[in-house]
Structure formats: C-alpha cells, structure tokens
C-alpha cells in the first residue's frame, strides 16, 4: 500500500473487522424476499420485529416493526438476533459421547433418542422415578414450557422438574402472590405516560430492557419525575431526578424508611387502606422503627435521600414502581419486593391509569414460562400443584390418575445440588447452569456426578458440552408459538425458516422421547398450534387464564393481556381496578424486617460484590457471545471499581471471595459505590463471575443471592482470559471470538467499547 492518507483518530476505523456476521452479508435483498413478523428472542420486553427471508427460506436480516410494544425500537441484541439463525456454530445433528472422557461423535436421531429413553428407564428403574429430573427454561415459547411440565409429570412421572426462572422471577412471583393473590405485572407500560413519578429499584433498565427506557423518557417528556435506586449510577440513574445509591442488600430498610416518613407526614391513602387492604397496622408498627436516620445508616446513604424519596412518592397523585433482579436476587428478595408493594398499597398507587406496580421479567418469556407448569410447584394456568382441585382438574384433562400426578419437587439450584445423590439423570433444555448458577465450581462437580445427562440446544453451550447426549434444536425463528411479556401481554411468533441440518423443534424431540417411553399418544402434535389449543383449555378457570386467546386473535390484535377467559373477552391490560385476587378481593400488607445479607463484609472480605448484565449480552451468553457485533462491543468481562480503591483503569484486579478468585481488567469509574464492586456475569470458564458468587438461597422462593456477597480485591498479574464459546466437532472458532479471548482491556463504559479509536 502506498501513500496512505493521514486521517484523524477515530475516522479510519469502522470497528468492523469482526462485525462481519459469521454468516456474511447478503445484499441487496434477493427478489422475492419477504418479511416475517415475529418478536425478539431475548428479554421480557418482547419487541416486535420482522425477519427478512429470501425465496429459498433463508433468514438474512431484520427490519423494524411497528408493534404496539416497541414501535420499531430495538436494542443491539434485537438488531442482530437474526444472525443466530444460519450461524456456523449451529448444531446440525445429534452428538453422543460413549464415555465421560470420550469426545463427541455424530449420531443418528434414532441412536440418540434410543439412548435417552433407555437411560431414563434404567435410572428410574434403579433409583426411582424422581431420580430423573428435567431442568427447563423461560426463553422457550409458552407452548413448550407447558409441554415440559406435562412431559415431566405424565411421561417421566418425576416430581423433579424446575426451570431457570428460579434464577430470575421467583422472588417477584412469590411477593406478588402473597400481596395480590396473583403473579403478573399490574399495569401496561403505556400507563407510564399518565404518571407523575416513576420509581425504578434494582433495575438497569437502559441495559437490560433498553426499549422500556422509551416509556420512561416519554413519561418524563410529560413531566414525570424519575427516581432510581441502585448501587451503580446506571445510564437511567445518571439523569434521574433522584438517585439513591444504596448499599447492595439493604433495599427493604430503605423502603421501610420511606414508608415511615410517609406515615409520619400523613401521606397515606387511608381510604384505600381501609377499603382494599388487610394488615396495615402490623406493617405500620414495624416501619415505625425505621426512621430515616436508621434506614440511611443501613443503606449507606444520606438520611435526606430517604426523606426526598418519601416526599416525591408520597405527594404524587399518580406514581408507579418497577423493580427487577437487583432487589430480587437476594435471600431477602421476596421481602424487598414486598417492602415496595407495602409502599404502593399504603399510598393507594395501584389499579388505575398512571398508578401501578410491576416487576420486569428478565427472559423473553419470563412471564409465560412461569405460568404453565414447568415450575416445580405449579400446574398450568398458575395453579398450585398441591391444591386438590387443581390436581383433579389437570389429571382429568391429561387423562391420568390423580395419584400418578407427582407433587412438588426440588427447585432449580437445589435440584442441581442433589445431583449424584437423589438426582442421577437429567434432561436439560434452554439453560446453561455451568455459567449461570452461583458458586460455579460446585455446579460443575454436581453435573459431573450425573450418570446420564442429555441437553437440548441450538449452540453447544458450556453445559451441553459436558453432556452425554446433545440433541440439536431449533432457534426461536424456526418455530411459532407465543410468549408473554413483562406487562402480561401474550404475543405470537411466526416460523421464518426450517431448522438447519437435522436439527428439530423442541416439541418434536420431546414427543419422540415420549414415544420411546411408551406414552407417545399424549405427545403427538402436528404443529405448535396444537399445543396452544391444548394449553389454553388447560388454563381455563386458573389465575393465568388463556382460554379466550387464539392465534387468530393474536394475528389480528397484536397482543392480548391475560386473564382472558373467553374469545369475546378483550383481555386485561390493567389488573386490580376493582379487586385483588384474594377471595375477599383485598390486597395483603406483609411485615418486612430488614436482615443482613447471607455473607456480611468483614476484615478479610471488606467489599460487596454485585453482578449483573451489560447491554450487548444476554444471560449466560451462549447466544450473544457468538454474534460478532456484540462481541466487539463487549468482548470480555471486567470489574468496576471506584477510584478511591487505588487502581488505574485497565489494571488487572483480582476479585477474591470464599468460593474463588478471578482477575479482571479494572474499569475505574465514579459511577459505583466505593464499598461495592461489579462484575458482569455473561462469560464462562475461568473468567466466570459465578465462580465468585454465593449459593445462598431465599428460604421460600429459592432464588440465589447473586447481588451481594463479600469480597476483597487486590492487584493481579494478568486478566483471566474469557474462553470462546464451545464448538461441536468440525466447527472452527470465529475470528472475532478468538480475538475477544485474547483481549485484556476493560470497556470504555459499562455499555461497552465506544466506536472511536485512540
């Protein structure tokens, strides 16, 4: 090359060396291409999008879609989601290993399915039915989540089925049931446009639910105030009218303190309390002990902030509260949510336009996936598996004897901890616990102690990579089905392509296993629509009543909020306008006393470690760590530390807890509390944040305490490499992933690397 011009820094760099998608670009669109309407595969917002499909049936791009949820808006994950479909890392045929230490080899479907069925039979014969477990997930279509519950109870007859919402939604779900008698966000997000105060607690909305930000911004355009409660000054917190930087693990003390001030100042809604609730007096007695000085002392903030927050909320005519994993991923997760609900109820801020409350579901189908029976204590329609009426109804519907319907089994993390003793075999689908579960060393040992492990996936996840049999499944774009978003809106996905190679849809695979177990007649479906028809009638009369929802209606109406008990019912976007779901129609206050986190700080481990997401990646990263644009934006994990801790940006900093240690490049930033450090959790292997986290569980919800444990930091030698995602035999490492594995730098900001250079 001669005479290269001199260009200013930042303008000669497209940062696109690896942003070439692994499938390459196809442009211009071939004649005869079409747009298939569907929804994103990632978070609980469930943005609508179109997939571009060429005449050969190949997905090659996306186009924004004006759906009522997102009005064309998408985040970087949504924009690039289509790149999974024809990705070279896709699993194209079943894989088997003959011994624990043998490599995978290609197998036929018959061989793989026969092996699965014979191992199920062997293990259940030797150790009992409950020794074979199912661990499922909430990124599946609602139809498949229903099927997984039915498969476990009817085909395997095991009580041990649970799902990865146990790592996500269960604290909020338990709190909602305790307070309201039902588990669903109370309001559509469009209600935000009519509110005066939006409270966001423990949710990095801008990075985890980017498109929800637009509802918040639109509310602020109309005069609403924003208050954010978070140990980190997240992108939303940066511009908030009030930012309350609480110490991790202290949320309920804050909300008790706020309610204390509201009571003191007389900002209660006495009439609402009298007419629509039960239990205020007990709560009032408890919050009396949380004066602002005490609350602020626990939370590590100025007492003024407790007063300011109380004034902002207490004097508003209309206010809405939202929370997510920040307050829920704690051994007090349920109580934290209840302390916010107490605030909402005491001020009557629910059940009307602009007055409301909701938790923000993490996974695309975090709501639908926790309603129809893959949760171990639950039957379809949000029914309790220990409720005799529900058991009788579902047994009759499934055509089984009620005595054959298992009872409640183990919850997700407990189920993994039981491997090698009470659990000997596992069918896993839609999860990656070797990356996502806390105290990862222990999780690895548990999986290694299984006698047999079959995993369904479309990419070889870290968990699938250690299975005995891997069954290649379809990505979301290759199947239809419904999901239910964070607002309780049911939306419809459409099939844009056929699965590649020999990959099959989840429900076909499950049906084939059932056939081999001799109970195929209950699992024969021609298409996913058939499962929805079965599902909606199974929910009739349940809390989450889907009976009136049909695919035809969803095509026509775009989204329908459950409960929707009949086909002429419009759905229920806003709950609790007239009554709550307890038999007497009243909501329940619940007394909350703040408690220390499981692992308080001490001289040896003086800092608090908290974990979370970054905008370019999703959960365990099995999908997003293969998308070059996202890998370039956030190639590797880092640790966020405050400047007062004495490190320079980019220094290798070793984070040490009682479970393990990992060295990360430091992102030195004032946007975090000095007593707290943060690590994003999307990466695997020796760089996984979950080598550090504690596996203490909430007593009731069994959610792990990801958001707070004790740690110390010290100068390390070099940042621990984050390995590229696992590959099947014959696949080669993507160049972007390879470069990321060698990367030792922190990002420019928590959202990733800027696009400039120099």
């Amino acid at each position, binding site marked *: 090359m001669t005479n*290269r*011009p*001199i*260009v*200013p820094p*930042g*303008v*000669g*760099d*497209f940062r*696109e060396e690896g*942003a*070439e998608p692994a499938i390459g*670009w196809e*442009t*211009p*669109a071939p004649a005869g291409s079409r747009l298939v309407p569907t929804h994103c595969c990632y978070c609980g917002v469930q943005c609508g999008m179109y997939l571009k499909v060429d005449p050969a049936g190949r997905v090659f791009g*996306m186009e*924004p879609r004006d759906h009522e949820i997102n009005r*064309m*808006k*998408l*985040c*970087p994950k*949504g*924009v*690039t989601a289509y790149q999974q479909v024809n990705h070279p890392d896709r699993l194209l045929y079943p894989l088997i290993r003959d011994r624990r230490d043998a490599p995978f080899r290609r197998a036929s479907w018959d061989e793989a399915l026969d092996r699965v069925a014979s191992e199920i039979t062997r293990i259940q014969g030797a150790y009992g039915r409950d020794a074979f477990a199912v661990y499922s997930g909430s990124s599946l279509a609602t139809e498949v989540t229903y099927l997984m519950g039915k498969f476990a109870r009817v085909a395997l007859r095991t009580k041990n089925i649970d799902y990865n919402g146990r790592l996500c939604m269960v604290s909020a779900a338990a709190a909602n049931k305790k307070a309201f008698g039902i588990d669903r966000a109370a309001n559509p997000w469009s209600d935000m446009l009519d509110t005066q105060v939006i409270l966001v607690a423990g949710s990095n909305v*801008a*990075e985890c639910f*980017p498109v929800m*930000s*637009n509802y918040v*911004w*639109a509310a602020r*355009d*109309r005069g609403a105030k924003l208050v954010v409660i978070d140990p980190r*000054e*997240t*992108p*939303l917190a*940066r511009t908030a009218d009030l930012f309350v930087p609480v110490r991790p693990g202290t949320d309920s003390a804050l909300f008790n303190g706020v309610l204390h001030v509201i009571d003191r100042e007389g900002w209660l809604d006495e009439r609402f309390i009298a007419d629509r609730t039960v239990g205020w007096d007990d709560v009032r007695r408890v919050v009396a002990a949380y004066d602002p000085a005490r609350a602020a002392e626990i939370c590590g903030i100025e007492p003024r902030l407790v007063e300011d927050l109380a004034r902002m909320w207490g004097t508003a005519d209309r206010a809405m509260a939202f929370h997510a994993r920040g307050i829920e991923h704690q051994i007090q997760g349920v109580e934290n949510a209840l302390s916010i609900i107490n605030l909402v109820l005491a001020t009557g801020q629910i059940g009307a336009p602009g007055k409301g409350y909701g938790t923000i579901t993490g996974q695309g189908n975090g709501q639908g996936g926790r309603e129809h029976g893959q949760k171990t204590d639950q039957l379809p329609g949000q029914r309790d598996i220990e409720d005799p009426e529900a058991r009788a109804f579902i047994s009759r519907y499934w055509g089984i004897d009620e005595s054959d319907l298992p009872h409640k089994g183990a919850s997700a993390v407990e189920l993994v901890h039981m491997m090698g003793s009470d659990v000997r075999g596992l069918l896993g689908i839609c999860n990656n616990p070797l990356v996502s579960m806390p105290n990862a060393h222990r999780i690895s040992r548990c999986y290694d102690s299984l006698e047999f492990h079959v995993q369904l996936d479309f990419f070889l996840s870290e968990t699938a990579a250690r299975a005995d049999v891997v069954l290649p499944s379809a990505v979301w774009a290759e199947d239809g089905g419904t999901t239910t978003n964070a607002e309780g809106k049911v939306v419809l996905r459409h099939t844009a392509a056929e699965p590649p190679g020999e990959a099959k849809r989840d429900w076909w695979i499950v049906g084939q296993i059932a056939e081999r177990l001799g109970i195929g007649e209950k699992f024969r479906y021609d298409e996913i629509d058939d499962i929805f028809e079965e599902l909606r009638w199974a929910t009739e009369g349940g809390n989450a009543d889907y009976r009136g929802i049909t695919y035809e209606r969803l095509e026509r109406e775009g989204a329908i909020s459950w409960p929707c008990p009949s086909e002429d019912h419009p759905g229920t976007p806003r709950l609790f306008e007239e009554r709550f779901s307890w038999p007497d129609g009243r909501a329940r206050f619940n007394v909350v006393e703040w408690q220390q986190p499981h692992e308080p700080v001490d001289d040896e481990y003086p800092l608090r470690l908290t974990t979370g997401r970054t*905008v*370019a990646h999703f959960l365990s990263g099995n999908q997003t760590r293969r998308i070059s*644009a*996202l890998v370039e*934006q956030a190639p590797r994990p880092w640790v966020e530390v405050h*400047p007062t801790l004495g490190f320079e*940006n980019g220094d290798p900093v070793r984070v040490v807890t009682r479970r393990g240690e990992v060295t990360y490049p430091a992102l*030195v*930033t*004032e*946007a975090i509390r000095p007593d707290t450090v943060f690590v994003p959790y999307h990466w695997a292997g020796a760089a996984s944040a979950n080598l550090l986290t504690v596996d203490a569980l909430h007593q009731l919800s069994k959610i792990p305490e990801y958001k707070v444990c004790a740690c110390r930091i010290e100068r390390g030698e070099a940042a621990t490499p984050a390995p590229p995602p696992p590959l099947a035999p014959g696949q080669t490492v993507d160049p972007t992933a390879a470069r990321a594995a060698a990367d030792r730098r922190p990002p*420019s*900001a*928590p*959202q*990733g690397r*800027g*696009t*400039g250079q120099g």
Partner: protein
Amino acid sequence: MMNRTLFIDPSRCIGCQACVAACRECDSHRGKSMIHLDYLEEGATTASMPTVCMHCEDPVAPCAQVCPTDAILVTPDGVVQEALKERCIGCANCVHACPFGVPKLDVDEMLMYKCNLCYDRTSEGLDPMCAAVCPTGSIFYGTLEELLGARPGAAASDIVVFGEQEVRTGAAVVVPATPVGVGVGAEQAAVPGGYAP
C-alpha cells in the same frame, strides 16, 4: 432545516449502540457503521452520545466544499450524500474538513464513507435505520412539529458553534427549552460543537 430530518438528543442516549448495530444493516453500506458512539466521561459517568452526519447547509457542507473531485453531492432535499465511488480518490480532505469528525476513510478500498441518511429508505418514506431502532428516541427522525408533538416543551437548534465559526446544519440537536420559546430560529441558543480542550 430539511422538512423531515434527524434530531439528536444526547440527554436521552443510554449508550446501548443499537444505532451502531442497525447502521451496519443499511443496504447501502452493509457491515459498515457510519455512527460514532462515544462515551463522553469515561471513568466518571455512563454518559454517551451518537454522532451522525449533520448534513450541513453552510451554505454547502464543508466536506463537499473541499472535495477536489466533486464526489460529494447534495440532493435537493438537503441530504449530503456519500462520495460517489467512481469519483472518490480517497484523499481524506472531507475527513479533515468535517467539523463533526463524521466521514470515515476505508484505507483498504481508498474510499470515503459517511451517513447518507439511509437514502434508500428515507427517499421512500421509511425512517433511517438508526432512528427507527433507537430505544430512547435519542436519534429521532421526523419534522420539528412531530418532535414537539411527541415531546411537549422540547426545543431544537440547527446552529453549532466551533469557536468563532458557526455551522448551520440540516440535522438538529435537541436542546433544553429556553425562555425564548420553542422552536428553531435565530433566537435559539447555538449548540457548542467539538470537545472542550
């Protein structure tokens, strides 16, 4: 200011880079993002801001003024187009002349690239990719009236000042509403350009 144009509101930006990802999907330069997404206060806050081509009107865009081969043309609707590939000689004059640092040079192809307002889309009535997907409306595409309808009380400016030099732009920046009133005009405060030294 053009009839429908881009409005940039840095205060709403959450730094997610959806615009960058979407820009790569544009059919006219697939794989190359023309958007700069900068984190403005590294080490202090999460503040961020997208920079797109401002389609200057001053009276002709600086990049077009300095192009020795007249490769950068301005269409009657005010869109400053990317350099014509058959004319561009890769001299980087435009790169140096642009006050916003927008044009990029592909040093392997020796061609200039810049935002052309997704001309394939906007000329047919579609929103440009970045504005369509931007989760916060930090990049907004429409008329001033549409902006004000969606954001009561907003104001916008199409004058950016670099030291002594004012540049009038085809795209606009959303600014805090001033007592002078709502809208674009001479009384509207100009937006400071460039980075503070």
